[in-house]
């Protein structure tokens, strides 16, 4: 999924550049800059998704949810079960193509949302049910 996303991303960036350059004559780049750009795009699509995949971790215990995401800036997030407010399941267009889904766990803080991307759809569904039951079992208004 990430490979596809990044292919789409870099293609779009490239296309925008081409359109800007050719159509509006906005800037005039020598040919070697184009070569560099293409190379950067290829490397980006080849390396970053793999890297991302290697970094990605998630874990759910009885009292907490844990995720690790990112490739350059790596972020680990921990939220106690008692502070979970909503559990979202999102299937994007690209993700649907591969039968994947993203689960987002939000807490009362805007800085504390946990995102588990690229889960198998069935696993994601089970995870959502599981989290809902567990979060429901804990007392308090989660703030």
């Amino acid at each position, binding site marked *: 999924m990430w490979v596809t996303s990044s292919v789409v991303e870099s293609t779009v960036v490239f296309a925008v550049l081409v359109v800007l350059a050719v159509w509006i004559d906005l800037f005039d780049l020598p040919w070697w800059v184009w070569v560099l750009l293409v190379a950067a795009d290829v490397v980006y699509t080849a390396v970053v998704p793999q890297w991302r995949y290697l970094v990605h*971790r*998630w874990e759910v215990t009885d009292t907490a949810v844990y*995720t690790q995401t990112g490739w350059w800036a*790596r972020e*680990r997030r921990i939220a106690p079960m008692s502070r979970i407010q909503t559990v979202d399941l999102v299937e994007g267009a690209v993700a649907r193509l591969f039968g994947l889904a993203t689960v987002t766990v939000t807490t*009362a803080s805007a800085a504390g949302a946990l995102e588990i991307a690229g889960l198998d759809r069935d696993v994601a569904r089970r995870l959502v049910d599981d989290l809902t039951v567990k979060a429901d079992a804990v007392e308090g208004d989660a703030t």
Partner: protein
Amino acid sequence: MSEPELQPEIERDSEWQRLDPRMLLVHPIRELVRFLPGLVLLVLAGSAAGGETWQLAFVAVPVLLGLVRYLTTRFRIGDGRIELQRGLLNRHVLSTPVDRVRTVDLTSSPVHRVLGLTTVRIGTGTAATDEDGLDLDGLPVARARELRAELLRAGPASPAVPGATTPPAPEPPVVEFDPAWLRYAPLTGSGVVIAAAAFGAASQLLNSVGGWDRLDPDRLDAPSLSLGVLVVVVLLVALVVVSLLAVGGYVVTNWGFRLTRVPGSGDWHLTRGLFTTRETTLDVDRVAGVGLSEPLGLRLARGARLSAIVTGLDRKQAGSSLLVPPAPRGVAERVADVVLGTRAPATGPLVPHGPRAVRRRWTRALLPALVPVAAAVVAVALGAPSWVLVSVVLLPIAAALAADRSRSLGHALVDGHLASRSGSLVRRRRVLAVEHVIGWNLRATWWQRRAGLTTLVATTAGGSQAVEVLDVPEDEAVRVAHEAMPQLLAQFVRDGSVVGQGGGAPLR
């Protein structure tokens, strides 16, 4: 509002009721002011067209609008809910449970104050826009105060105090406005903001009258002054004007500032404002921590500003959570200690982050400064004029910044509070009670990982939503988070570091 029985307050409120009839005076005046430009245009156009007076009938429109607004707005408090109904064509019914009320603000504009009225704004901690806010615009002041007491007492956080009908003697204020604080006003950025806004408005006005064209610089007769003197004079005048504006703004918003503790419940009560007075009550259980901020100017004058981190209030409502306006640092620290109930977190010593964090501060400050300097040197070598080398002054500035930033870096976990300090141009010290931490984020870029550093973020439901501890050594970050919430982190800690089990771990 002088009847002695306070007890049936809630019962009486459970009927639909209107706001105070005196609002019939306030609404038309306000609408009139809002329509004033249009009205003036209409009258001008009318008199130019023939001097008929029928245009005056348009004055009736705002008056009518005010009347309609008064007649269509009703509210009631009953069954544990507050309900507000308003609007003639688009009928709004707002409803919220009483036990979700987090703050109650009383705001009185000058018009309100003349009539002895006030606006009650009920905060529930949602990201409500102005349109959706629960505003009871126009209640008599005494009635509004009773209502506030009732609402906050009904909340779950402050249990009903038996025998609260006879309020105990009010406690002495924790902090009170001191005119000497005015000297800190010019040191904050607010004067510049006000001046910029005023300048913007003025230039727009000039523009619409076509004044810019008439302001021909050649026709200004200041030929006797050289350019340098002129620049200095203009700068001085600007400085004085900006300072005056800052002092004015400070007086208008903070005059009569008073922070007191509500007897009985222990909630915090704030009053401030010169023309428009504002009373805020903060539920003591929702005060998660405090933030002490010292912009450079204030810090040099040993001043500081203190605000509270309140659950359910975000940065946009920062006005509600200001505990001490720019004032001597001693005052701000004393209030912080009182609010937190303990001395150590706000004023005690902090643990520095070690040499690696310091090195990171230096590289981060020096590298961006080096780029233009290097560019300048190359340019001069290639034949550019030598004044370009002036950019070398960037280096000592960057160095000073780096030294100061590494000096202010620090954190502490004492008395159930997490304290963290960072920054130089605006140095901030944030203190957050551990029981209000609702999650931990550990963030590290590739560079940080190489240096063995990480940024520990304690998320919370108020203020800026998180307290950051910048660039702590990894093991120290884990230790702090672990100590704060032992049962939480232990399950993810392996070999002194936080790790997960692996992608797509099976559900248990």
